[in-house]
């Protein structure tokens, strides 16, 4: 879901310029249009702020290759999920 068309108002939290909002499947973050390393920083900032098992849904315009080692270091995994054409959507979850 594109945050721009989301009827729920997108939030901006922390230092990140990325849009964040909450849905039933987890906390969403849209980092499209940001220059490296802003998407990486925004996603990791969000992941680091989550204390429970809430998943994070990432809306990205490209495969965030630099993210994976950092996620692994924090004990999170990434799962690619269905997304509209032109978007890469990831579901991030903390390891059990």
């Amino acid at each position, binding site marked *: 879901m594109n945050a721009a068309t989301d009827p729920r108002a997108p939030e901006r939290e922390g230092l990140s310029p990325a849009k964040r909002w909450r849905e039933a499947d987890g906390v969403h973050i849209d980092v499209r249009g940001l220059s*490296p*390393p802003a998407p990486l920083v925004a996603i990791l900032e969000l992941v680091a702020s989550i204390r429970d098992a809430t998943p994070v849904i990432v809306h990205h315009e490209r495969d965030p*290759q*630099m993210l994976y080692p950092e996620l692994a270091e924090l004990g999170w995994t990434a799962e690619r999920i269905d997304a509209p054409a032109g978007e890469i959507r990831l579901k991030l979850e903390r*390891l*059990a």
Partner: protein
Amino acid sequence: MKVAAGAFLAGAGSRLLPASIPFRFFGAAVTYHLLAWLALLAGADALPRFAGGLGWALAALHLITLGVLGTAAIGASLQLLPVATRRPLGSRLWPALIWWVYSPGVAAVALGMGTASPWLLAGGAVAVSAALAAYVLLLARNLLGARGMPSVVAHGWAAVVSLLVLIATGLSLACAYAGAPGLQRGTALALHVVFAVYGFMGMLALGLSYILVPMFALSGAPSERAALTSCALAALALVLAGAAALDIAPRALRVAAIATGAAAVALHLNLMVSALRTGLRRELGRSFRLVRIAWGMLALSFALGLAVALDAPYDGVAMLFGMTAVAGWLLTFLLGILQRIVPFLASMHAPRGKGLPPTPSALTDDRSLAIHYFCHLGALALLALSVIADNPWAGRAAAGVGAAGAASFCVFFAIAIRRMGRGAVAGRARTAAAS
């Protein structure tokens, strides 16, 4: 599609090169690092007052510049620039071909210098130049289609132009030993030094820092406007230094170049320190202690460069300047960054199987890096002592300690590669432990 982090990296449009490409460049760089210190051991007699000329001291210098700095810069830029430009490199064959021509070429250049064999040196220089020319084309093609990070792209273009000057002057100097006509030696040498250290390597180091430092510190992107201003000042400094090398008001333009370059670096370092101060990751360990030391050495190199430009009445000042800029700044910076990049890339490339990827920290052998850290800093101090005291024995000690550190860095690299190959096993073991 359920995948562990990083399992879908190598798609057709991926900007991540196959592991074999960056790691073959990094592997050659760490090997040449060890060989450079060994060459210096052989040429330590000439070290304290080295002023050029064939021999093992010159070979050691070029094993560092071409062998370590150049090789690692090619590998790192081919991997990182596509991230900044948002454009895949478009070729996997050319980087491999470049490595196959460049690496033996560097060995031939070093052997030709060490054994005073002009034809071997000239042959090596032709091979290195051909490989660098192919690299320039790859780089330029990627930069031409850039769609992001204008400051990194601008630094990339400055590095491309500098590399063209470097190739021309390097070929001229090398072929002059074999009797071929070329540029006047003093002019070629002055251009060669400036455009190698502050041009090609310097601009790449400054430019790629705008990706790497925020990425490792987990900070926001530095101000594009400030980064572009720093780049413009640095490029202007290169132009002024180039004009001085061509004998146009040499003293005044050298001083102007140093002042302009120092302003560029001050702006750059301010952005870097700000990134480190505001990043989510505050503790960056030994690698960034090396990076901070390198930044200090970069600033010091301008002070020493000024002393050289003003003909300071001390005959070791040119050697101290060269050592500070090449070993203190560029080599220390590269080794600090490389010890973060290697495990990071290895984690991205580790085979997954059904398991989880190994983390960068699990791929890092900290003990070998600790040994390298103390040996490297000890070697730098001994090198300075050798010049200040005009003592070749201190130079020999520096080479021995430096070689021990370089060997330890090779161990770190080999362990990272071995653990990367076992990634799937490690991942499966961790999955089993977690379940």
